[in-house]
């Protein structure tokens, strides 16, 4: 009898040790050939390294498996299949392109593993996920939330700085899908504003949109559009194009002598060393993060320094702190739940409040369709002295806004 009890105990200890040694597997799908995916993956590795150095989660090490989606829908879907069936991961994380994510959603629905996604801002992705997917957490703001957050930002800026006016808005949009979608969303926002509804209700009186051919797609002559903008005389001049448009557009604005109150750029990324150009001074931009947030957020400062130490390069896109947040948000949930079982973990993730390197505290709330939405706003930033400064949200402000847009003389 004693032998039997001893044997059972030994077997139980061995079984417990085996479980303890089994890693918690996180499967990430990102586009590694793109700076957003590359830096997000690196930041995820940094987070996993820190967690493992601190003893792992629930006494188990954490393993991160990263697969490149090559920004192709079928590759993104296959990556989810591989993570689920070959690597047998416990969770899906990752993000970026909306079209890739749309192809992944039917596969994710089949496996219904807890998924925490940091990209894919299109509202179509939210509709495709649907209201019943309680296993799905989305951290990046949806496109309609971004539009609303800019409205809120300019409203608060106009309240804080009464000289700021945003009555007349001119949107220069590249003629492709990205720019056209931006124009359509501004048209919808103006329609709402005219009815006294929406985030732009109090601040947008008139709107004009003019398309241009992006330098990234063979264009690059913006003079006609800039002349139209100059004649329109907007308070906010916003351009929705690509990084290749940034410097030539500013150069041509200088040529035609167009200097609006605010010169706002909304490309997905900026050219390397854009801040070094004298033309960049005073340019306003939208984004989720800037290195200057280090001044107001200890979490951002820790992330920034740790990232540089590990990879010997600066994080240059907000997907880096978002990738880091992706892992830590899940880790906080696991710690709070004390298990990786689905139901209690979903419950715990709903209650997590994580001080992220993005600047804000990440909390989960429902959005238009899904139950679990994380961040809901972008930030309004401005190039000042070669750095991106946060001018809104006011509680994360790192500098006062420079306006009106500085004169072209001497630049």
């Amino acid at each position: 009898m004693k032998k039997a009890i001893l044997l059972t105990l030994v077997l139980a200890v061995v079984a417990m040790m085996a479980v303890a040694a089994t890693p918690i597997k996180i499967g990430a799908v990102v586009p590694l050939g793109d700076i957003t995916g590359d830096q997000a993956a690196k930041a995820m590795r940094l987070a996993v390294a820190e967690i493992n150095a601190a003893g792992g989660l629930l006494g188990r090490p954490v393993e991160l498996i990263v697969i490149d989606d090559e920004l192709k829908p079928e590759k993104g879907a296959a990556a989810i299949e591989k993570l689920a069936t070959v690597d047998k991961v416990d969770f899906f994380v990752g993000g970026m392109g909306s079209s890739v994510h749309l192809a992944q959603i039917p596969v994710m629905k089949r496996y219904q593993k807890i998924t925490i996604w940091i990209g894919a801002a299109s509202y179509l992705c939210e509709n495709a996920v649907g209201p019943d997917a309680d296993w799905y957490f989305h951290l990046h703001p949806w496109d309609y939330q971004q539009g609303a957050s800019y409205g809120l930002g300019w409203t608060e800026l106009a309240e804080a700085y009464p000289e700021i006016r945003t009555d007349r808005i001119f949107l220069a949009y590249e003629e492709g899908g990205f720019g056209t979608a931006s124009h359509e969303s501004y048209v919808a926002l103006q329609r709402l504003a005219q009815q006294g509804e929406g985030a732009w209700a109090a601040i947008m009186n008139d709107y004009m949109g003019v398309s241009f051919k992006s330098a990234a797609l063979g264009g690059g002559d913006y003079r006609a559009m800039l002349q139209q903008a100059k004649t329109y005389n907007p308070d906010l001049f916003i351009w929705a194009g690509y990084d290749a448009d940034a410097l030539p557009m500013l150069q041509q604005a200088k040529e035609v002598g167009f200097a609006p109150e605010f010169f706002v750029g909304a490309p997905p990324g900026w050219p390397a060393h854009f801040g070094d150009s004298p033309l960049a001074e005073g340019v306003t931009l939208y984004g989720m993060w800037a290195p200057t947030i280090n001044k107001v957020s200890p979490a951002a400062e820790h992330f920034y320094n740790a990232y540089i130490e590990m990879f010997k390069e600066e994080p240059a896109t907000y997907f880096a702190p978002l990738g880091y947040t992706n892992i830590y948000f899940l880790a906080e949930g696991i710690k709070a739940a004390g298990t990786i079982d689905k139901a209690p973990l979903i419950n715990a993730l709903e209650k997590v409040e994580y001080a992220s390197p993005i600047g804000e505290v990440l909390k989960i709330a429902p959005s238009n369709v899904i139950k679990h939405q994380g961040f809901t706003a972008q930030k309004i930033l401005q190039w000042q002295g070669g750095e991106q400064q946060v001018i809104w949200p006011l509680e994360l402000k790192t500098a006062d806004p420079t306006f009106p847009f500085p004169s072209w003389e001497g630049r």
Partner: protein
Amino acid sequence: MKIAKPLLILIVLAAAVLLPIVTEAYFISIAITILTFMTLALSWDMMLRTGQLSFGTAGFFGLGGYTGIIAAADFGVDPVIGIMLGGLVAGGIALILGMAILRLRGLYFAITTMALASVFMVIIRNLHRLTGGPSGKIVYNTLFNYDSNKVYWFMLAIAVGTVVISELFQRTRIHFAIDSIRADETVAKSHGVNIYKYLIFVFVVTSIIQGVIGATYALQYGFVYPESSFSPHYLLLPIAMALVGGIYSTIGPILGAIILGLSSEYLKLIMPYGHLVIYGVIIVVVVLFMPDGVYGAIKAFFMNRKRRLEER
């Protein structure tokens, strides 16, 4: 010897049909992608056999995708019917366009077909209510509710159907017409070949195939998105597959699709960073050192061996 070839085809076909029973969903998903691009590569090659270089593959692929999604989302049509409609619309538009653009030859025809994807994309982006505009469109009832095994068998059936059509083009009298058009149009015309009729016929058939594949792809994942559905990826990869495998044949594009489809996935797994560079190098090396593709090189090897044996 006569029985060996049909037997081999039967074994390959049986293995392909039984694949989902012996493997994981991941490999099935890779196989579906390979079949998708294999069919596109074959359809591109079938048009090339007439001597006309068409770059319209991505355009008809996207058109089929949009038709399938609109049919399923707005008219509640079953995805399989939506796929057939995708083929029909692509074929119908190819017929109308073909009547004009198939008067062109060589570079002029190639450039005109290259513009098709952009033209279709601009039109679709501006038909907001129907197509969802620049945001795209989704459908909730995906093909077989994303049962990957059923999707695989469906794709396999389309691929086998395309192989049969390709072989019919190689073995029936269409073959003589197509080959003579490619070799010398004037001679073909003087022999009574109705060049225009044959070109339109091949253009429409290959466009139907591309439309069917586009609709299958779109309904498998349940979405269309202008930049994604008309991506040059659906033109360039099939061309690369046909070139690597060997053009002007049925086996060539099949081999090319298998080689590039598997190597792309394998390279990615062993080399997460930089795998696309190696992949590109493979394509360049094969095209440079095997101008007739892998199939051409294999054929040449066996012919040389046979000749050497006969000489002994």
